[in-house]
C-alpha cells in the first residue's frame, strides 16, 4: 500500500513535469513573439537576445498597422472570413439536415460519398483551374473569389459537424411541431436551430478560423493592396530587403489575437463539434 501511494505521487510529479514541458514547447513561440514585438530595433538586432525588454515600445505596432497598411488587411480578412463563415453555415445547416434526416434516399447517400471525397481533395491540386475559373468570372481581384474558395473547402467538414448533431435531435420533436401546424421551414427555424446553438457555434468557428488562417488562395488570387488579406500581407512584409523582425512579430501578434480570443471563450463548443465532424468524415 505504501509503495502504491509513493508510486502514485511519482506518477503525478512526472505527469506535471511532462505537461509543463509540453506547454512551454507550445506556448514559448508566442511569448517570444510578443516580447519581440515590444522591443525597439536595437534590442531586436542583437546577438545576445534577452527576455527582459529594456525599453518597451509600441513603435513596431504603429509601423505595421499604420505605415504598412495592416489595418486595411485586417479589415479585409475580417470581411472575407465573416462572409465565408456565414455562407458556409447556411449551406452546412441545409446539407447537414438532409444528410441526417433523409439518409435512406439514394441521392443523399451519393452526396455523402461525394463530400467525403471532396474533403480529401486539397486546394493546391486545383490551384490552376480555380485561378482560371476566377479569372473567367472576373472576380480575381476581389473578396468574392476568396469567399467562394474558402466556403467550398470547408463545406464537407461543416456539413458533417452539423449532420452528426442533427442525428441527436429526436424526430419526435419535429413531428410534434408538424402536428402543431409548422411547415418544414418553420420547424427548422423555430425548433431545430435554437437547439443547435452549440453546434452552430463550433461549425461557424471552424469556418471562420479556416478562412482567417488560409494563405495560398489569398496569396495567388489577390495581387492588389486593396483586397489583400492578412496572411499574404505578412509574407510580403517579410520580403522587403532586410527583414523587419520587430514589425513582422507585431503583425503576427495581430493575426493571432482574434483566433486565440475566440477559442479561449468558446473552446468547449469548438472542440466537441470538431471531433464529432471529423470522426464522421
Amino acid at each position: 500500500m505504501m509503495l502504491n501511494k509513493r508510486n502514485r505521487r511519482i506518477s503525478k510529479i512526472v505527469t506535471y513535469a511532462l505537461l509543463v514541458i509540453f506547454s512551454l514547447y507550445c506556448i514559448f513561440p508566442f511569448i517570444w513573439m510578443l516580447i519581440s514585438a515590444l522591443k525597439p530595433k536595437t534590442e531586436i538586432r542583437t546577438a545576445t537576445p534577452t527576455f527582459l525588454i529594456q525599453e518597451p515600445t509600441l513603435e513596431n505596432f504603429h509601423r505595421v498597422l499604420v505605415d504598412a497598411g495592416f489595418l486595411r488587411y485586417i479589415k479585409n480578412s475580417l470581411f472575407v472570413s465573416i462572409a465565408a463563415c456565414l455562407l458556409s453555415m447556411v449551406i452546412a445547416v441545409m446539407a447537414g439536415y438532409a444528410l441526417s434526416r433523409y439518409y435512406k434516399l439514394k441521392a443523399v447517400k451519393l452526396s455523402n460519398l461525394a463530400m467525403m471525397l471532396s474533403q480529401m481533395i486539397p486546394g493546391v491540386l486545383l490551384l490552376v483551374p480555380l485561378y482560371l475559373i476566377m479569372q473567367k468570372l472576373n472576380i480575381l481581384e476581389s473578396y468574392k473569389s476568396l469567399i467562394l474558395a474558402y466556403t467550398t473547402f470547408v463545406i464537407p467538414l461543416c456539413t458533417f459537424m452539423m449532420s452528426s448533431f442533427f442525428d441527436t435531435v429526436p424526430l419526435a420533436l419535429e413531428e410534434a411541431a408538424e402536428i402543431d401546424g409548422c411547415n418544414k421551414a418553420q420547424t427548422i427555424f423555430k425548433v431545430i436551430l435554437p437547439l443547435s446553438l452549440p453546434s452552430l457555434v463550433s461549425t461557424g468557428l471552424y469556418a471562420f478560423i479556416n478562412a482567417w488562417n488560409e494563405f495560398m488562395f489569398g496569396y495567388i488570387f489577390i495581387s492588389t493592396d486593396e483586397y489583400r488579406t492578412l496572411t499574404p500581407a505578412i509574407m510580403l512584409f517579410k520580403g522587403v530587403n532586410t527583414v523587419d523582425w520587430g514589425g513582422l512579430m507585431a503583425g503576427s501578434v495581430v493575426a493571432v489575437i482574434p483566433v486565440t480570443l475566440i477559442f479561449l471563450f468558446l473552446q468547449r463548443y469548438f472542440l466537441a463539434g470538431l471531433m464529432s465532424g471529423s470522426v464522421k468524415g
Partner: protein
Amino acid sequence: MKTIKKLTREQRMKRTALFMLAPAIVFLALLIAFPLGKVVHDAFSHVHLINKSMSGFAGVENFKTIVSDEHFGQAVKNTISWTVFSVLGEYVLGMITAVLLNQKFKGRAIFRTCIFIPWLVPIIVAGMTWDWILNPEFGIINYALTSLNIIDAPINFLGDSRYAMATVIFVNIWRSFPYYTISFLSALQSVPGELSEAAAIDGAGIFKRFFCVTLPQLRSVSLVIVFIHIIWTAVNFDFIWVMTEGGPNYATETLPIMIYRYSMKKFDVGAASALSTMMFTIMVILFTVYYHKRSKLSDEMA
C-alpha cells in the same frame, strides 16, 4: 387513395432533400468536381498561362516533362520524408500528451488549452515565428545553444540544406500535433477507465497497460487521423513555401511546391496539371486502401 398519398409524401421528401443539398452540391460541383476534371484534361493537353497559342492534345508529353525534371526525384523523396516524419512525430507527441491529459488532476484544462493553441494560428505565423526564433544572427535558440556550448557556431537552420528539411518538419509537428492530442483525448474519454484499473490490479505495468489496453482502443481513431494527415501533409503548400520557398537549392522542394513552380512561375499549366493528376492518382489509391481497412476494422469491432 392511400398509395397516392404515400407516393406524394415520398416525393415531397425527395424534393426537400434535394433542395437542402442543392447549394452544397453546386459549390462542390463548380469548384471541386469541375476543376478536377479540368486538371485531368489539361494534363493531356498543351496549356500555357501566357502563351495562349499553345493548345491541342499532348499525349503523355506533360508527364514526360515532369518526370524528366532534374529535381523531380528529389521532390518525391522530399515529399515522402516530409510526410512520414511529420506524421510520425505528430502521432507520438499527440499520443503522449493525450495519455497525460487523460488523468484527473488540477489544472488539466489550462494545460489542454496551452497545448491546443499552436493548431489555431495561421501557418504563416507559425512559420515566421519559428524562422525568427531560429534566426542564425539574432535568434534565441542559436544564442542559447552557443552559450550552453552545445554548438560552436550558430546554425543556419533554414538556410543550410543539411538542416532545412528537418527544421521545417519540426515546425510542422509543432503546429499539427495538437489535433492528434484532442482527437485521442476525446476517444480515450469515451472509454471506461475501469479497464485500465483492472489491468493495473492484475499487475500490468504502465507500459504494458498502455500497449495492451489503451492503444487498441485508439485503433479506429488512429486510422482516421493518420490517413487524413498523410494526405494533408503530403499536399501542404503553405508551410514549406513560407519558411523556405522550397530552398535552399531545392532541398525542401516537395511536389506541391513543384506544382506551384510549374504553374505560377513557368506558366506551364499542362505540366503542372500532369503532376497534380499523378498526385491525385496516388491519393485515390491511398483512399481505397484506407476505405478497405476502415470497413474491415468496423467489421471486427462489430
